[in-house]
């Protein structure tokens, strides 16, 4: 298995508050990795450091043969101009907790935006491919609706299609079902399950233990900005060695 992502010693502080305390992580192509952990433990920050929405204060992230945001130059990391950083970022699809759909664009408009503007596809080509993706997430019938006309679950499925449209190497999900009404969680998890089955490389921050147990190849538990446990779901979820992880899991599994 070849590596897709390698995070090396990621540190991040906001002011004097150290949120990430030197995280290392490797994700292989085709792997599904779930990140669990209590709220405020730095899961979102870690994901945002991986795709450089936040710049780490220390360490770096290697994605598919390049270091995010930098270029290795005579043994030092030289910061890249924004255009090249964006090109790297488009290799990582991101799905946000609050969808972040473009409010002034239709469902179809949201999905074709990246391919047309960033990759220079023609409108016809972008639309044809977008319709295929919307089909895949079960949203083709709503192609001409605006985000405000959709339910949360529908919005999130569109957001997934929008991220997939850039044909990213890796998909990042930041609590994709946490903002949804309980009855809408299933439809989004179903789409994600299908992606995993299709071999998509995924890093998923989630509170859905059931999803992690069923779909993840590996599970990571983060507490207070540190990775406290990492391994196969059965092992981590049923027999964690770390006492704090045990407390956390007993709380969420209760």
């Amino acid at each position, binding site marked *: 298995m070849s590596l897709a992502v390698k995070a090396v010693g990621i540190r991040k502080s906001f002011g004097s508050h150290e949120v990430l305390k030197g995280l290392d992580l490797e994700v292989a192509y085709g792997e599904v990795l779930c990140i669990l952990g209590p709220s405020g433990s730095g899961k979102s920050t870690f994901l945002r450091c991986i795709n450089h*929405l936040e710049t780490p204060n220390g360490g770096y992230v290697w994605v598919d043969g390049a270091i995010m945001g930098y270029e290795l130059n005579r043994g030092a990391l030289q910061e890249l101009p924004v255009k090249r950083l964006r*090109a790297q970022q488009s290799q990582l699809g*991101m799905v*946000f907790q609050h969808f*972040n759909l473009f409010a*002034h664009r239709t469902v179809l408009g949201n999905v074709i935006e990246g391919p047309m503007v960033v990759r220079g596809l023609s409108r016809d080509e972008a639309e044809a491919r977008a319709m295929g993706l919307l089909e895949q997430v079960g949203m083709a019938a709503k192609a001409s609706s605006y985000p405000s006309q959709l339910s949360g679950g529908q919005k999130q499925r569109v957001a997934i299609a929008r991220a997939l449209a850039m044909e990213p190497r890796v998909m990042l999900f930041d609590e994709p079902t946490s903002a949804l009404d309980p009855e809408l969680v299933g439809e989004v998890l179903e789409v994600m399950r299908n992606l995993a089955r299709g071999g998509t490389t995924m890093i998923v921050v989630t509170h859905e233990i059931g999803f992690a147990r069923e779909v993840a190849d590996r599970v990571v538990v983060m507490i207070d900005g540190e990775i406290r446990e990492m391994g196969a779901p059965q092992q981590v979820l049923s027999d964690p060695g770390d006492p704090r992880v045990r407390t956390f899991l007993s709380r969420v599994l209760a």
Partner: protein
Amino acid sequence: MPHLPHSSPAALPLIDLPGPDVTVRRLRHPGRWVSGGIVLLLLAVIVRAFAVGQIQWTVVGQFLTAGVIVTGFGWTLLISACALALGVVLGFAFGIMRLSENPILRFAAWLYVWVFRGTPVLLQLLIWFNIALVFPRLYLPGLIDARMVDVVTPFVAAVLGLGVNEGSYLTEVVRGGIGSVDRGQKEAAHTLGMTPGQTMRRIILPQTVRLILPVLGNSAIGMLKFSSLAATIAMGEMLNAAQRIYFINGAVIELLFVCAVWYLAGTTVLSIGQYYLERHFGRDAATATSDRRGFWAWARRPAARGEA
């Protein structure tokens, strides 16, 4: 305290309850009729006062379509349109600068707003008009070399004065509009690989325009009225034309009324335009969905804060 069953004289026993088809008598509002009547009466008094007052209405009618007045109104429209266009351009330019990552650009935009919003527009007009006292020549290497008085004509001074001033207001409006587009959409655009420029042009600004459109409508209406200030710098717009006529024929109030009629006509047309523009652009925005009642209902709505 325990809840005691109270037996006031008004208590209605179940046995006395009427059937479902019982007649309902609505409350009368005699107060509304009285206050409405009083207002109508006052209106009638005012109308009568003007009808019998020292105004020659035939003169008003006569000058309403006089060549000088109509030409003046044309200038009024032209100044307003040019100044508004200048204001919008400046508003967007400085509004975007106001949120720049570069502290010097941010400071420059702040300074612009501070100066031009902090001084009266009439004063600014006079300064532009007299700018030649400071800079006798306008010299830009390779572009222009002329006497300032030839460049800054009353028309140019009016457009600059009104436009630059309006721009300082619109800067704040644009800044607020950009700020109100949630950060998440910007981040989503970044993760798709869009550059800051592409994100601004394709994601942020289109949503900003929609938000500031109602303000632009008010700006246009305000501008039409404020353009009358240009009369003070010898710009031959409508009010100035009217003044020159009444200095000669003495029909002061008649000519001022002529202007009032034209201004009202102009602002009414603009209000109608604003209504349709808002309805068109508001189609998918959450804000305008409640306003589908037609123009007149919209026009009589309570004025928004700061509506000129």
